[in-house]
């Protein structure tokens, strides 16, 4: 099964956002799904006796885990190895892909069964496997659909939620041996199950991601609602779990709390339908589990992020996707506008660090700083603050700060404007001079008491909005009168 390589299109954001917004306008249901998830989350959280305390506890766990990251990773490796797993450290996605391809080839696997994971999307593992003649089969329903349709995830937890059911029906008739057409979601799900069940039965090689890796026990934890991850972990002879550096947490108790948070913030559940916790491969006398377990610990830019204590906060994320559902921008443009694996506020925070600021300018500028994401985040990520930090890196004269994430110099017009502004802001007389110079210029296009356009400049604003006239007298100029009247 071939899959279109996941092209990095973060530089086409503005264009993709327009397309996304047009699609959403045509299908109101697209906007309703995030809203539904948002409400489910609110209802789910109410089962915590003290919601802010529960969220703050999550932030504390993630903050501690990141502060102790090197030490915890070593401990995890030691425990996992003692449990019988083989740990492989991969610096880049290519290294990780090569390793997994090599393992699969050595074992003569013709296909790989995959549990839903974001990290293998980030790595482009499916393309790497296909290139070597090994078929990847996505076993999560949504991932299965988008794999067959050659498109990218629309939402972190609902990769195919943008695809109309009629298209899914046609797809299953053509590619998943479905016998008769139906629009019933249960029957569609059943068709995919039947089709994939056969893949599971003969599976030799499974690949999954990881939600949490527990340092004190060497345990890998996955949460899901369909059972595909459990199946991919338990049924093949060889199993590979891929995790990025930041997935490690200190203790099982920490992991337990993060599970409570993740389930509630994701989908409003108290706990996901399936939780698998695995410490090593099948042991003598055990019924199931893989004969061999490989754990790939992937860096792919995380250690660079780790070096910057402020940017490090972005690594707290547990991928609950609550920020996506809360985001008024995501709701308008959908998940494909962001141009790569991660979408919504967390995508805007993570992808500039992973891909470089020079390739992701719009991601950290296309935000009104409304703070809804920060308000829902269960691990205390301050998304708006991080976006402001990236913006300042572009401007900063500090070359070291700029080079770590490849900041991009701002246009001279903007830089010049702020230089002048920085002077005027200190002296009201200079400020007033600026006002009188701009006033006649700004006001010259007024009609019916408002400004309707500025002949090219600020076209984005004037396309659908008027502006009041710049007052003939500023508040300051009126102050002497105001003082007397009121």
């Amino acid at each position, binding site marked *: 099964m071939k899959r279109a390589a996941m092209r990095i299109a973060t530089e086409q954001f503005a264009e993709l956002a327009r397309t996304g917004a047009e699609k*959403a306008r045509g299908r109101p249901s697209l906007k309703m799904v995030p809203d539904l998830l948002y409400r489910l989350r609110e209802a789910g959280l109410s089962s915590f006796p003290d919601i802010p305390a529960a969220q703050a506890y999550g932030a504390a766990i993630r903050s501690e885990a990141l502060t102790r990251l090197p030490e915890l990773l070593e401990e995890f490796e030691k425990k996992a190895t003692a449990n019988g797993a083989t740990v492989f450290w991969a610096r880049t996605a290519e290294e990780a892909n090569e390793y997994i391809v090599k393992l699969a080839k050595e074992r003569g696997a013709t296909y790989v069964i995959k549990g839903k994971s974001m990290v293998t999307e980030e790595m482009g593992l499916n393309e790497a496997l296909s290139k070597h003649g090994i078929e990847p089969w996505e076993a999560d329903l949504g991932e299965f659909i988008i794999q067959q349709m050659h498109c990218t995830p629309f939402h972190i937890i609902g990769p195919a939620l943008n695809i109309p059911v009629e298209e899914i029906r046609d797809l299953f008739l053509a590619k998943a041996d479905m016998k008769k057409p139906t629009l019933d979601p249960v029957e569609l799900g059943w068709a995919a199950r039947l089709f994939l069940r056969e893949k599971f039965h003969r599976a030799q090689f499974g690949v999954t991601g990881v939600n949490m890796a527990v340092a004190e026990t060497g345990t890998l934890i996955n949460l899901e609602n369909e059972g595909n991850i459990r199946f991919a972990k338990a049924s093949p002879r060889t199993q590979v779990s891929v995790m990025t550096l930041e997935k490690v947490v200190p203790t099982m108790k920490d992991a337990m709390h993060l599970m409570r948070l993740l389930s509630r913030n994701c989908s409003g559940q108290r706990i996901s339908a399936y939780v698998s916790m695995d410490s090593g491969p099948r042991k003598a006398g055990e019924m199931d589990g893989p004969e061999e377990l490989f754990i790939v610990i992937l860096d792919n830019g995380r250690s660079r992020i780790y070096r910057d204590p402020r940017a490090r906060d972005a690594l707290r994320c547990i991928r609950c996707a609550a920020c996506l559902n809360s985001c*008024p921008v995501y709701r308008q443009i959908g998940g494909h506008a962001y141009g790569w694996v991660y979408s919504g506020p967390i995508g805007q925070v993570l992808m500039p660090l992973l891909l470089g600021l020079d390739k992701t300018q719009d991601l950290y500028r296309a935000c009104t700083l409304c703070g809804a994401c920060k308000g829902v985040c269960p691990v205390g990520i301050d998304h708006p603050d991080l976006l402001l930090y990236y913006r300042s890196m572009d401007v900063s004269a500090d070359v070291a700060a700029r080079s770590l994430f490849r900041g991009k110099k701002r246009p001279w017009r903007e830089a010049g404007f702020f230089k002048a502004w920085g002077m005027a*802001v200190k002296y009201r007389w200079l400020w007033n001079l600026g006002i009188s110079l701009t006033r006649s210029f700004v006001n010259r296009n007024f009609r019916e008491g408002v400004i309707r356009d500025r002949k090219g400049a600020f076209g984005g604003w004037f396309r659908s909005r008027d502006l009041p006239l710049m007052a003939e007298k500023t508040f300051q100029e009126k102050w002497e009168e105001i003082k007397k009247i*009121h």
Partner: protein
Amino acid sequence: MNEVSLFIPCTVDLFLPHIGEATVSLLRRAGAAPFYRRGQTCCGQPAINSGYRKEAKEAAKHFIKLFGDDEAIVSPSGSCVCTVKHHYPELLADEPAWFRRAAELAPRVYELSQYLVDVLHVTDLGASFPGKAAYHESCHVLRGLGVSTQPKQLISAVKGTQLVPMNQDDFCCGFGGEFADRYPDISEPMVQDKVQNYLDSGADLLILCEPGCLLNIGGYLSRRHPGKRVMHLANFLAQGG
């Protein structure tokens, strides 16, 4: 009598001075004595949002020098108050003397409705408006300052006014300063949804506490729904009093 230093945002100074005038008249009606420091310019929010920290620091220091000794500083803009309260200490963190001054100043800066209700303990300012009003929870007022009940109390106390619920009242209207001009394909549907929710609420008037949102929602209404009105809380409370 409570002496109150007026902090008039540049958007109000330049485009919406009537909001400033209403602010003065309300404060007087509530028993305070507002005064205006002529040296004030801009709090620096646009520079912070665009990443120009060095220039924003200049604005911050100017503001602190000017307002530093005032007991209470009141502004009809939640986002400008947020800038002074939350961003100044962070901006000046590497200059201990300035940081201290910023941190000392922060608790003395108030958004207008917050000052009226929480400090002066006034909710009824004698205004009257016969009709239904909806309230837009501006991002920086609600999430930045935690101010939400205060404006609603003030609106509810107006004679003849019925405060009606509005769908997604806490959703961003799509302003975001430069965002509105740079990303019209995103900003437009946002303000369009906001206005649709306002129309669906059946309110005769939309009230808010943020000049930025007022320019955005007001600008859109002026273009597409000229009969519908949006008003700053200060002007709403100042009428008919």
